[in-house]
């Protein structure tokens, strides 16, 4: 089985990678590409057929890196397709189909909802609490946060909401999105209570490690999705001067 990404540009479609399985490395590589800002997007080819979403829409993603990562997910499937390992594909499908029909405002509200029960606190604006309810969030903080989230596009927001629901924390998610925390650190902080219990009572591989790896995979997929969907890459070459 072989997959390739198609780039939709200038109305024409060019293959990004050509070598099918069974051929050796002598197959000519795809021609060098000029990185013009993409107007269309990237598709995935699955055994010469276009990948579709569950709602039969054409699977189109905004970034080349994301398309390649999704293609790699499909490529790594063996005798059975394990959807529970294909987090990036799932996120793209959710963004394309939007099965729950939510708009940006609803996505932001769903993400900010976790702020009230956030167990990780820092900064003066939020304050800290020793009771189980957590401190009340100043309205100003909430407003600033909502307007900050509104600056992301719908795809990135979908990813942010996904990460928030995984980590159960708005602040950890922002730390991850703004590259202050690595995935491993964010996951560790979101599992503080569990880690404490593990230290005290011991680690159970089929429960604790299993959940840890799943959480890490989901969080990493969400963070990568946000980054790849909210950036635009341009490469500028230096002009040679005599």
């Amino acid at each position, binding site marked *: 089985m072989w997959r*390739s990404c198609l780039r939709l540009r200038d109305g024409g479609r060019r293959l990004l990678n050509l070598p099918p399985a069974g051929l050796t490395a002598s197959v000519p590589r795809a021609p060098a590409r000029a990185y013009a800002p993409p107007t269309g997007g990237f598709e995935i080819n699955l055994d010469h057929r276009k990948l579709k979403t569950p709602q039969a829409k054409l699977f189109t993603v905004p970034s080349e890196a994301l398309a390649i990562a999704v293609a*790699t997910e499909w490529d790594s499937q*063996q005798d059975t397709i394990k959807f529970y390992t294909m987090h990036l594909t799932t996120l793209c499908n959710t963004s394309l189909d939007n099965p729950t029909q939510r708009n940006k405002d609803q996505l932001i509200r769903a993400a900010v909802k976790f702020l009230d029960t956030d167990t990780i606190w820092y900064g003066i604006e939020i304050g800290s609490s020793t009771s189980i309810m957590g401190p009340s969030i100043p309205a100003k903080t909430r407003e600033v946060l909502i307007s900050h989230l509104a600056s992301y596009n719908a795809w990135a927001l979908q990813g942010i909401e996904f990460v928030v629901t995984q980590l159960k924390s708005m602040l950890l998610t922002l730390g991850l999105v703004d590259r202050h925390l690595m995935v491993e650190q964010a996951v560790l902080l979101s599992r503080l209570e569990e880690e404490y219990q593990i230290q005290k009572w011991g680690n159970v591989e089929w429960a604790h490690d299993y959940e840890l790896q799943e959480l890490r995979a989901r969080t990493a997929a969400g963070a990568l999705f946000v*980054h790849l969907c909210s950036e635009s890459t341009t490469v500028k070459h230096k002009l040679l001067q005599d």
Partner: protein
Amino acid sequence: MAALGSPARTLRGLLRELRYLNAATGRPYRDTAAYRYLVKAFRAHRVTSEKLCRAQHELHFQAATYLCLLRSIREHVALHQEFHGKGERSVEESAGLGSKPVVSHVASRIAVRYAMDCVT
């Protein structure tokens, strides 16, 4: 900023994960689009002197995130195959549970399953 280590180390980790992914199909991992993209991206964002380069940091962060994704999925699948979705144990398996501890090959360290304690 998060401490990331050296980019070369991240790239090596990513290539190792790609090798694992392609080991089953038998196709050389150097033929995959992911390999070509990663190597090209790492080359394009290489800086030659010790300058703080934001673009490189961003790329490196993404690469580290992707490495975490691939590694976690691999370990998650390994744990899933080891412990989940197998149905009930056979009579022989259950009978043998108490006599010898089952050493797991999934994690790098050797851990005796706590489930055994519950059964015996």
